[in-house]
């Protein structure tokens, strides 16, 4: 069964220079393992293909039922250099929530 991440998680994003970070938080703690399994760094890199220039890193925060993603080269230089509306990566969060994952066997 396909599930959109917006049904399973909430998120907040921000910036560090030209890198956007997305914190992805399970709505229900029991769904955190699903996020760990399906929302891999490679899968997120595919989701944002063509929209970011660098690699994607992932960190796990099981205590907060959250994953943290770093999207490098996401902000057209970042901060004051960037020409993007979202120069500070504030809404990469909901862009990730558009992702669909295949859950169940």
């Amino acid at each position, binding site marked *: 069964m396909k599930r959109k991440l917006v049904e399973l998680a909430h998120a907040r994003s921000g910036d560090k220079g030209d890198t956007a970070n997305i914190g992805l938080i399970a709505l229900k703690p029991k769904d955190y393992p699903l996020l760990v399994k399906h929302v891999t760094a490679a899968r997120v890199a595919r989701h944002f293909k063509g929209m970011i220039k660098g690699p994607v890193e992932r960190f796990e925060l099981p*205590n*907060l039922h959250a994953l*943290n993603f770093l999207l490098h080269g996401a902000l057209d230089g970042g901060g004051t*250099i960037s020409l993007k509306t979202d120069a500070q990566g504030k809404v990469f969060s*909901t862009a990730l929530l558009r992702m669909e994952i295949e859950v169940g066997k």
Partner: protein
Amino acid sequence: MTGGGRPATVRVAGGQGFWGDWLEAPYRQVTGGPVDYLMMDYLAEVTMSILQKQKSRDPARGYATDFVTQMERILPTVVARGIKVTANAGGVNPRACAMAVAAVARKLGLNGKLTIGVVTGDDLVGRLDGLIARGHDLKNLDTGRPLHDVRDRVLSANAYLGAAPVVEALQRGAQIVITGRVTDTGLTLGPLMHAFGWAPDAWDRIAAGTVAGHIIECGAQCSGGNCLRDWKRIPDLANVGYPIVEARADGSFDVVKHPRTGGRIDIASVTEQLVYEMGDPRSYITPDGVADFTTIQLRQVSKDRVRVSGVRGKPATDKLKVSVAYFYGYKAVGTLVYVWPDALEKAKAADRVLRERLANLGLKFEAIHTEFVGADATHGRLALKDVDVATMPEVQLRVGVRARDEAPVDRFTREIAPLILNGPPSVTGFAGGRPKPEEIVAYWPALIEKRMVQPAVELIQA
């Protein structure tokens, strides 16, 4: 807190999350219920260069003037209730900021009732050549390039100081502590170290105070503001309560807000703030220590009260982060609104026409960036997957250009308006007039050995 007695709990209120945050928040924080400290964060990376520019024109300026206005409003309460204030409003001129606050205090009849601590030592702009000559090449943390590359365009350079000088100012009796580039978290950690007598190498306590600082450093962003989870049910944002950390000596603390305020403090709102601007969660590095965010335990203990415990820390590194601002070039952004039918198609056609004209003029840009606001400006190709673009009522064409020289950017700003009469139809929304070329001040992150930076504290009596 004199006489050696230590309090059971200390309440630190977040009053400003950035320069430009809600002007009502500090007053509400000091009048809405008991607080021991008011913490106000004013400095973003770009702010320092703006302040440096102001100071170069007028040596009495270079600090966050809004802070002085705020102090005029809250000082009578602050003095009457014995509330202490920590703020990095000093920018590149903390002493001038303190003098301005002292003048306000005297105007309010508070002569002799206020001691202001001033923290300096972060400003490296006058020392750069000496540092570079001694082998501190301040390599860019992202690109690895030495600062030498942009040395002649540097506008400001500041080391991020930690909580130590804030603690020193409080210990010497300051009621208001005004700093330059002290970390956001240091402004909260400093009061807790001072109040509880935490040692600088009590790494778990230092980490806990740092996490507390991180949670409240963006103001209401942990208490219901910008919170995605169940956002429609967050009550009374018009009256949103800014956060308060209620800390205990063991390093555990509760995140709360004043009664009869709006917003919401729950696991979701605090977690969203915890992951905001996060890098590697196991190593949240500050000048004071390294906090491990994977050790944080959250528990909702009652309505609008979240308990934070279990935070573990590691020793501080021997480096400080340095933020250098330098002149980069110019940019401008022009917008026009295209309307149904075929709104997106018209906007795309206009973009093609504009780009062809820019090319025909031979203008050289480092970047031309087009977005269609209302369609794909923020979510790119992901946004249009399930959308019938033909029915879009309106789309804003937004084109930005960037160049090292001003001339091509200036010429670009004159190519927007003509499109209204000589480009695709059904276009409006140029009421703002011709866009202006804007100077770009870019930011250069680097590290420096801690021993090269000596924080200094002085006291000023109002």
